[in-house]
């Protein structure tokens, strides 16, 4: 089961963007999504932003992953690569 870690978009460059994943910066593709802006949260899988999240929902989900501990955050972050 691929965990859905919300990632914050911190920069956009055309069809690509930079996200913040647990403090690490990653470049991913925005090809699957429209209307993404800096500050939005997205769910990412193998280099693609899959879905855009409501910010409140994203914060709740991040808090949930934090409850599961560092291992869960690392696993979810790994899927982003």
């Amino acid at each position, binding site marked *: *089961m*691929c*965990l*859905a*870690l919300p990632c914050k978009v911190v920069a956009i460059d055309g069809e690509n963007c930079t996200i913040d994943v647990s403090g690490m910066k990653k470049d991913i593709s925005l*090809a*699957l999504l429209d209307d993404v802006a800096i500050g939005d949260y997205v*769910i*990412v*899988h*193998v280099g693609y932003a*899959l*879905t855009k999240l409501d910010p409140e*929902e994203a914060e*709740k*989900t991040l808090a*949930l992953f934090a*409850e*599961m*501990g560092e*291992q*869960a955050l*690392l*696993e979810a*972050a*790994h*899927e982003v*690569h």
Partner: protein
Amino acid sequence: MDQGGVQLTVDWSGGQIVAARVECRRPKAAHLLEGRSVAEVEALAPRLFSLCGHAQGAAAKLATAAARGEDGAALAEQLCRGVAREAIGEHLWRLLLDWPPLSGGMQEKETFLRWRKHLLSLKTPQEEALFARELLQWLPSLAEFPCPERAVAAPAQLLPWRDADAWTAIGVDSVFAEAPMLGGQPAETGPLARQAADPEVVALLADHRRVAARVAARRADLRFLAQALLDPSLLLGWLGAAPVSAGIGLARVETARGLLLHLTQVKDDRVEAYVIVAPTEWNFHPRGAFVGEIVGSLAATRDAAAMLARRLALALDPCVSCELVVEAVGEHENA
């Protein structure tokens, strides 16, 4: 393995893959659902998982309904279309984005994006029916992939179709979830198990071309799912739930990757225990389909061994990223 996921290691002796190991090490996300109210669990389950959120959400609702002694038939009917749409999207991802680069081709990104955006825009059964007809018309034009590999070892059993009631007798718990087996043996779940009676799949299996059979099964699954959007009664067996005992319910949901089981124990509207058995744990069992099939494969070079392992892993479709290590053994140790 500190980052979790699935690690595949194959030992290559110079001409052949002689051994393989699989290690699945992932956090127990199901435990996050314990101690919460039923409403919280039903809201959280689809949010925790990025690829199969619909299926996870449906399984959570069905399992808790069964734990409370409710009949889940109407609920399953209500949830089945979302599960089918999600599975269609996953199959298209594999066939248009993941398979071409491992078959000497290029990703069909534009085609995938067109289908995905159409899929996500569907709001009504009429729109779904239109989408399904277009998909059925387009599927024969989908590029074929060369899959010449022939399995040399006896295959893992294909997971038979069992309804939720039958799964209640298996003893699903957190230990079972880590390395599930049926009848004491590993089993393969997913499109091949579901579409094993498809004539093209039957012919490929008879020819020991199991990777090709899995690709053909995925296409057959896609055809079935498109037809099911036109006639959702076909999908009713895909989702189901049954009580295990007082306060404990089990749900089964078919996903693109295979069987998903949820088991939950509910007391006073609070979830006391939660177990999720995901398809990846069946197919990447330490003695499962990957290990059983890759060992004995002929590979003239280390790169060829890596490609065979990557293609078999993709055919078995893990839901997390796979790390592959090819270890040269014997006189090729320093190759």
